[in-house]
């Protein structure tokens, strides 16, 4: 209840940034598994990649899949796969064969299928693809991918900044790899629909990251000019503040896709709906994960490569140590409850490893002057104004 309540109020203070090494390790393991599977197992490619013909007939009472299959085989045609798909009135038999050399044979098989199923020939749905079709679609999709990355990378670069573009695109790459890996591990069928659906997720994944970045951007405005919070803290605060929104976005994005998946995979069984819904479902989940646990932490890491931010972090921590001794509400300016939380949650890996001693002059722009004192644990954020804090604000998780 408490967790939900805090989640609802955007007052969670899960330490996404501070614990980022954990997520990195977890992600690294998952990515390795995915890579291994991609290399050693590969994909289960659909008919569009191998080329071939597909015949679909509504399942008739008293006709088994075996009957239909036998009818095709009696035509001297190899059956690549025969399956029952869909449910209820939409249940059908799906037979796949290799590509036909002449269309006459195809027509003969179609008639045989219709006869075995006791339906008229126009009830048989056929599709035929050449083996080059799948790769043509995929080539186009890869081109689209490159163009998309360039365009969106440029957009984020212009709209936000370079480091956000890099972090966002890196998270995107992770999503792609993870989704591909899941397809490979589980053995879901890969069709051109899947490939293109995957591209759509790119939009979603970035979209999520963009919203968080937007908040980080807002929170970090004027950050270097003041020394209240470190960049990591501000970023963590942004993630927490947008956590509910991220969850909502993912849920609201997933709900319609779930509807699509239910109908596409459950009731129709084969086709575009299923291909799209499945890849979107998997991709959106990975996208939600990466934008929370990877995109912003990477952004922070990138930022801390910048000397200004590194120095700023040290300055803040120094000042905080000083401020603690002089605790008395000098900083009791109105701030967001979330900001207050972030103070302690953002107790950053760096800050623990490399704590900076108090500077006696906690003025804006003052440099910590290198005076170091070990063991000063920053406990900022515990400023006096806890008016807006919920009761459990101090607890983690």
């Amino acid at each position, binding site marked *: 209840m408490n967790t939900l309540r805090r989640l609802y109020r955007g007052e969670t203070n899960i330490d996404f940034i501070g614990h980022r090494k954990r997520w990195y390790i977890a992600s690294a393991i998952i990515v390795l598994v995915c890579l291994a599977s991609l290399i050693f197992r590969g994909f289960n490619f659909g008919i569009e990649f191998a080329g071939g013909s597909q015949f679909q007939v509504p399942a008739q009472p008293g006709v088994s899949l075996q009957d239909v299959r036998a009818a095709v085989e009696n035509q001297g045609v190899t059956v690549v796969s025969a399956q029952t798909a869909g449910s209820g009135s939409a249940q059908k038999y799906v037979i796949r064969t290799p590509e036909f050399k002449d269309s006459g044979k195809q027509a003969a098989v179609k008639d045989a299928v219709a006869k075995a199923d006791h339906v008229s020939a126009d009830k048989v749905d056929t599709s035929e693809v050449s083996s080059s079709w799948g790769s043509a679609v995929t080539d186009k999709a890869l081109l689209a991918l490159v163009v998309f990355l360039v365009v969106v990378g440029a957009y984020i670069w212009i709209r936000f900044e370079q480091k956000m573009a890099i972090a966002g695109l890196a998270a995107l790459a992770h999503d792609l790899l993870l989704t591909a890996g899941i397809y490979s591990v589980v053995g879901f069928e890969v069709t051109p629909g899947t490939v293109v659906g995957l591209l759509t997720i790119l939009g979603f994944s*970035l979209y999520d990251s*963009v919203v968080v970045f937007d908040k980080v951007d807002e929170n970090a405005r004027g950050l270097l000019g003041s020394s209240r919070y470190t960049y990591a803290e501000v970023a963590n605060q942004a993630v927490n503040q*947008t956590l509910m929104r991220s969850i909502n976005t993912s849920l*609201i994005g997933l709900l319609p896709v779930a509807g699509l998946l239910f109908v596409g995979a459950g009731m129709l069984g084969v086709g575009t709906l299923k291909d799209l819904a499945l890849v979107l479902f998997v991709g959106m989940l990975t996208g939600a994960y990466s934008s929370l646990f990877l995109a912003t932490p990477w952004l922070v890491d990138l930022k801390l490569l910048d000397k200004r931010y590194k120095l700023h972090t040290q300055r803040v921590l120094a000042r905080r140590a000083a401020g603690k001794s002089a605790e008395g509400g000098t900083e009791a300016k109105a701030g967001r409850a979330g900001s207050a939380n972030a103070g302690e949650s953002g107790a950053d890996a760096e800050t623990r490893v490399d704590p900076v001693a108090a500077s006696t002059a906690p003025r804006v722009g003052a440099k910590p002057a290198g005076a170091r004192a070990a063991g000063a644990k920053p406990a900022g954020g515990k400023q006096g104004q806890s008016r807006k804090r919920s009761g459990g604000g101090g607890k983690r998780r």
Partner: protein
Amino acid sequence: MAAPSGQLKASRYFIALALILVALYALVFFTGDKKAHPKLGLDLQGGTTMTLSATTLGKGQAPDKDRLERARQIIANRVDTSGVSEPEVITEGNKNIVVNVAGKTSEADLSKLVAPAELRFRKVVGSTPDTGGVQPSPPASPAPSASGSAAPAPSASGATATPSAAASGTGGGTGTALNETPSPAAASATPSAGASAAPSASASASAAPISESLEKRREAVIAKLGPAYQVAQSIQSPDQVAPQLLPALKPFSTLSPDEVAALPVDIQYNVPTITCAQLNARQPGSISDPKQQVVSCGSEGGAPTKYKLDVAKVLGEDVKDANFTNSPTQGWIVNLSFKNPDKWANLSREVYGNGTADKSQRQVAIVLDNQVVSAPSIEGVMTGDATIYGSFTQEQVVTLSQQLKYGALPLAFKMQSFDHVSPTLGTQQMKMGLLAGAIGLALVVLYCLLYYRALGLAVIASLVVSGALVYASLVLLGRHLGYTLSLAGIAGFIVAIGITADSFVVFFERLKDEVKDGRSVRSAVPRSWVRARRTILSADTVSFLAAAVLYFLAIGAVKGFAFTLGLSTLLDVIVVFLFTHPLVAVLSRLNAFTSPRISGLGNLRSDRALTTVKTTNRFGAARTKES
């Protein structure tokens, strides 16, 4: 009601939105076919879709844009003449041509479309108007038939008849002119000459023997025709068919195009009951063999004309280049150059002879696929480049020069994918798509109601508005741009529900932030809007970019998906700006709405904060009333 300054004038936005909606639906109901249905894709109504890829014959390269468009026209032409209903032929990407057929077709029918389209230059051995045997006398063509070949037709075509001789003189040197003679019924003016020309030409042409399979089909057709065939064999020339013979020749008009193709060339040409419609619908490639004499149709002065053509001595591959210019003396002309001028010189020499024959006796037909695209008469022996002139419009020379250029690099077609969806499955997919949408929508609505309570109602209202916009756009796009809603398109809309609803989430979460900071709901709305607007625009831009890139670069069914996704994203911006935000602003002024139990916002504050804010809120409300 005097709104205090600084307060959002919601009515303006609502009026703007209402105007947009009214305008869209006015277009839907009062323009075009006035049917308020989007155009459905074949996967939703049943039909066949085939994707052909075009590559240059032999080299396997993707064609350039002009050539692909030319190829599309060739395929469209083939589909049209094969008699399938409502075909739609479009290009996709840089080498694909998609054929959509709503009615019944078999794969065997469509697979005929893939024969390579090749260009041939053939000497015209004889030509005759396509009467279809309906009238015993040659029909009145659009141009006055009484004037014959000598007199100029009333149209601009007549004007060229006179300057053609002079023009060939000025052409001089290497460039010689071909005169496209649009004058009608040329052959009918000198019927005996035309007839006599035929046998001599066939004697000179070393036509290759026909294949065994063709022999078999021919026998079958002859057997089917019975006595009519004997009658046909007695005909020496199409112009000498006695009217009383026509009833006996009637069975020919019932032959299928393929059966017509199996008949000997003389029969195809001589029998007037074999029409151009039948000849044009022969399988693509059925007259591409350069070693055979063939019969093909074209138009002379606007009238359909049957041509009997010699073996092809110059092929499309021999064309080096073709382009068009506007010459001051001859109007729009097409210039043609050859890789191997000798071949062309020989053909023109053979056709021109000593130049004494009538113009209609020295024509060269340019045959593309099954049809004669142009049949200019030869004005001299051409040792170099050639010029085709004759009262063309600009459009005509553009087409002709493209057709000739195309011949230089013929395309081969390969079937890439073929999908036949029965109407049963189509309807089923349609239902399923809508069901999926309904489930998705219901889940989102339920979630929003639970989570945002009264604000959830704002979400639902916004989704309804969005739906109304989307639907009207679909109908209009289908009507004016030929956009068809496919199953993938429906999936796009369903996924877009998430995008649309998410804009509201961004806004409401911001609102919650502000309220949590101690603001009244009322004062939080404008503040949160300013910030949410930025995020919504950023996020929508990224979604839209993804959709746009996909739409322009992807091929196959998923294009429809990208399209609807992009469309919904655009409409989402309109809905959020013109509807959701003003609606929430209005709601925030209602006291009832700010109550925590209804809006789901109030319980954000801790008890202490709540009481404080409640008082301020009351004050705020009171102040407003006073002002």
